[in-house]
């Protein structure tokens, strides 16, 4: 908030735009202030080309020690808020020290940028990509402008994608066998499966399938784990008997899912689980959690 208000006091306006801004896909991004804005979408290995327009306020001249643009990939851990860890940092010098009297346009280009991680907005962690324009000044604070953009990376379907099949149970009480057709799902995928009841001695009320996201941040003693339930999907109503087989068909598209992130820069991981929950008449819950890998399918 501060720097936005400060911007009005600034002696110049800075505007960052992308060369293909009109045609490029826009995706919503939730800002720190809670507002959602549409920003440009990139993927790794793309060239980020655009221009920076600096327009001094009417009749004012801006002295500076040089203008630069940086492309930053940052991870911010909320227990260490404000402290950004840059895993990517590229700089382009736009201008040598001098003075600005009038509107000036600086084209820039970062070609085939390696952006291995996706933008992510989690409970305890944020991964973001920004373009940062800095006008360095003597004695007074630098003028800085940011432009967010989002990175998403696509992967082809995995060559090995086994089904998940498992028999679980409580002795003499409940034995089930469940099967999900894959262990790796893309974000618009459908989970197909079935739950087969081998033994039912408890009075079940219903059964549901949950999709849970487990975000772990930090390492060692400072590990924080947050689990969110993103989907609750009732599979069965009532009490089955032995031999019943209940179908599973869960469309993933309605849920806001993202790919699985494993150990991003040693800072955090985000994993997905399918949690099968059986509830009995006394509201006791019996569950079995299975990790699934989510990926963003490369559309062909």
């Amino acid at each position: 908030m501060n720097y936005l208000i400060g911007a009005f006091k600034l002696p110049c306006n800075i505007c960052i735009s992308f060369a293909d801004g009109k045609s490029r896909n826009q995706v919503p991004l939730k800002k720190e202030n809670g507002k959602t804005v549409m920003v440009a979408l990139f993927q790794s290995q793309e060239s980020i080309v655009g221009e920076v327009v600096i327009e001094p306020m009417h009749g004012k001249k801006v002295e500076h020690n040089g203008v630069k643009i940086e492309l930053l990939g940052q991870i911010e851990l909320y227990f260490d808020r404000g402290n950004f860890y840059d895993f990517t940092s590229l700089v382009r010098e736009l201008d040598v020290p001098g003075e600005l009297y009038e509107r000036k346009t600086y084209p820039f280009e970062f070609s085939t940028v390696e952006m291995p991680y996706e933008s992510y907005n989690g409970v305890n962690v944020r991964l973001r990509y920004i373009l940062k324009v800095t006008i360095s000044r003597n004695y007074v604070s630098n003028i800085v402008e940011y432009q967010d953009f989002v990175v998403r990376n696509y992967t082809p379907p995995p060559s090995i994608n086994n089904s998940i099949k498992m028999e679980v149970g409580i002795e003499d009480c409940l034995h089930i066998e469940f099967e999900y057709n894959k262990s790796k799902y893309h974000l618009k995928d459908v989970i197909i499966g079935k739950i087969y009841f081998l033994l039912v001695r408890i009075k079940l009320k219903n059964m549901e399938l949950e999709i849970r996201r487990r975000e772990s941040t930090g390492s060692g003693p400072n590990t924080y784990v947050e689990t969110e339930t993103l989907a609750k999907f009732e599979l069965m109503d009532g009490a089955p008997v032995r031999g019943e087989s209940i179908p599973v068909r869960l469309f993933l598209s309605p849920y806001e899912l993202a790919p699985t992130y494993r150990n991003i820069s040693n800072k955090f991981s985000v994993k997905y689980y399918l949690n099968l929950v059986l509830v009995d008449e006394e509201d006791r819950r019996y569950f079995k959690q299975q990790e699934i890998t989510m990926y963003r399918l490369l559309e062909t």
Partner: protein
Amino acid sequence: MLNGTEDEDKWLAEGIAGIQHYAFFMHRALDSNNLREALKYSAQMLSELRTSKLPPHKYYELYMRTFDELKILESFFKDDSKHGVSVVDLYELVQHAGNVLPRLYLLCTVGSIYIKSKEAPAKEVLKDLGEMCRGVQHPIRGLFLRSYLAQISRDKLPDIGSEYEGDADTVMDAVEFVLQNFTEMNKLWVRMQQHQGPGRVTEKQEKERSELQDLVGKNLHVLSQIEGVDLEMYKETVLPRVLEQVVNCKDDLAQYYLMDCIIQVFPDEYHLQTLETLLSACPQLQPTVDVKTVLSRLMDRLSNYAASSADVLPEFLQVEAFSKLSNVIGKVIEAQVDMAAVGAITLHVSLLTFTLRVHPDRLDYVDQVLGSCVKKLSNIPKLEDRRAMKQVVALLSAPLEKYNDIVTALTLSNYPRVMDHLDIGTNKVMAMVIIQSIMKNYSCISTADKVEVLFELIKGLIKDIDGADVDELDEEDFKEEQNSVARLIHMLYNDEPEEMLKIICIVRKHTMAGGPKRLPFTVSSLVFSALQLVRQLQGLEGDIVGEDVPVTPKKIFQLLTQIIDSLSAVPSPELALRLYLQCAEAANDCDLEHVAYEFFTQAFVLYEEEIADSKAQVTAIHLIIGTLQRMNVFGVENRDTLTHKATGYSARLLKKADQCRAVYACSHLFWIDDQDGIKDGERVLLCLKRALRIANAAQQMANAARGSSGPVTLFVEILNKYIYFFEKGNQQITSSAIEGLIELINTETQSDSTNPDSISDAFLASTLRYIQFQKQKGGVVGEKFESIKL
């Protein structure tokens, strides 16, 4: 309990309110073509169906309300210009709903449009819907959901001739789908029971279950409506699969209902052709299933089918319907150890009815049924059950009704054996039924063997059976029974005297055992039956009557004497007397003087020794006089003896009036108005004079006793006798005697001591009028009467 229903009503009202609430928002969304909102609110509306608090019939109310709303939703879905989403996408979209029940209702709704759109083979969509519906395992909710599925898919099955039939979709798929849905529904339905746990099956739960039975049965109905289900497919696929489910579900309510359902919904022809398969399921049902009703209905249907057209009868023979049915009944009885006797017998009744209707010509079948029933009954020590009794009666009555002829039944060797198992009371009832049947149809039992069997059958009526409680007998019932037996005896008849005699002997043998209470009823029938034979023989007269002829009137009369003798044990002297007189008359007609004399002797002996009552004596003496008068077989000596006796007895009656009347009646013994009858005018006059004396004495006695003489009726009666004999030409009766008598009567009437009596006055007046009339007639008679001066 009251609170329970109140709560249920409250919950129902809440549910309905919820449905209306969300339906309102759904309609608004539909009006603005907002698919997302429509889906959201329809799912919420359907969530009202997730309740577990309502009993089936109230849940049904909720269901019907949502059903109507879903129809509206369906027509919205159908029109993709309104929402712009293809049916395939829609099919996915509705599956995003988080709760399984609303999701599946929506899926079924879209599924029906999906099939209609023909974008996917009907088979695939149906299969998917059927499969996905497994998600609801709650019995009531599942049943209603699947019944919704059945409802919306009914007109979209790939049946033969349907628009959904194609290369990929065959009628087999349609059948497969319905069968699958049926199986799942039945499983859910059966599970309602198991849910409640054993031992807690209350009436209410049973009731709730039966409220849902039609949802399950509906599937069978759908199956029967599928054009493509021909006999072949029914035989190979439909029936075995349905039966498999029925047998395996091991639930008595379901088994009973479904068996009945199968029998009712599929055509008779199919049943006939698959009888073996269908029946083979019966012994496998639970022991508590009311198989007898199931089988009875099946047999009812089949026999109706047989009755519908004669053309189908060969089919019955071809598939050996009877032996199959008979077989399975045996097996069912064997399998259901606990089945009450009544059940087993009811089954036999049904089978018998079936046999009688389908194979009326096969008596051996009928006998076979009875035989197997006997086998079953013989395992039961004593048949106590009233209902079982009733069934046995039904079993025995059926052939009677069918053949309208006891003769047929008599040829059934097992018939009496079944009857042996009845208790005494029922046995009597049954015997009555048999007799009534004979009466109704005027069946004539014409051989001795049959008579023997028949009497064996009705022995409950013929004699006391050991152990019978005599006190219980209702007098009126007893009379009616015995009257029926008496009537029955008249139905036994054969033209052949020899055979007839045998019949009589058999009847005699049986009736004689009947004891004093029955004899009065039966003996007279028997006697008359025998007398009829006598008269028949008489009719044959002229034929050679030799020693080798086995049947002679003489013999019969000997028999009759014995028969009537038996009445002495009762004793019933009055009846015996009458019968003796009848016999005497018959003997007279046969010209058997000695026999007739013997009968008269017996009659007189009875009169002397047994008949003490004065009224009875009066009647008896008049009977004797009447009979004797008609006798013409006697020689002078015998006749004199008898007439002498008769007049003697007449004069010795107690009351003067009776004496008088008997004596003037005796006058007829001496004047037989025949060609060669006795005409002893003198003795006639003697009798009449004696009568007059007695009348006089009576008058005087009355005077002495009461101070007034009785009416002159007796005199007038005697006057009439005078006139009769006068008219008949008895020379001893003169006109002057008549005049004198009239004079006497007139004096008597005018005397003060006589009470005026209108009846005797009128009597006299008409007597006098008769004389006048005869006078005016002219001719010989007129001349004769002219001599009487009034």
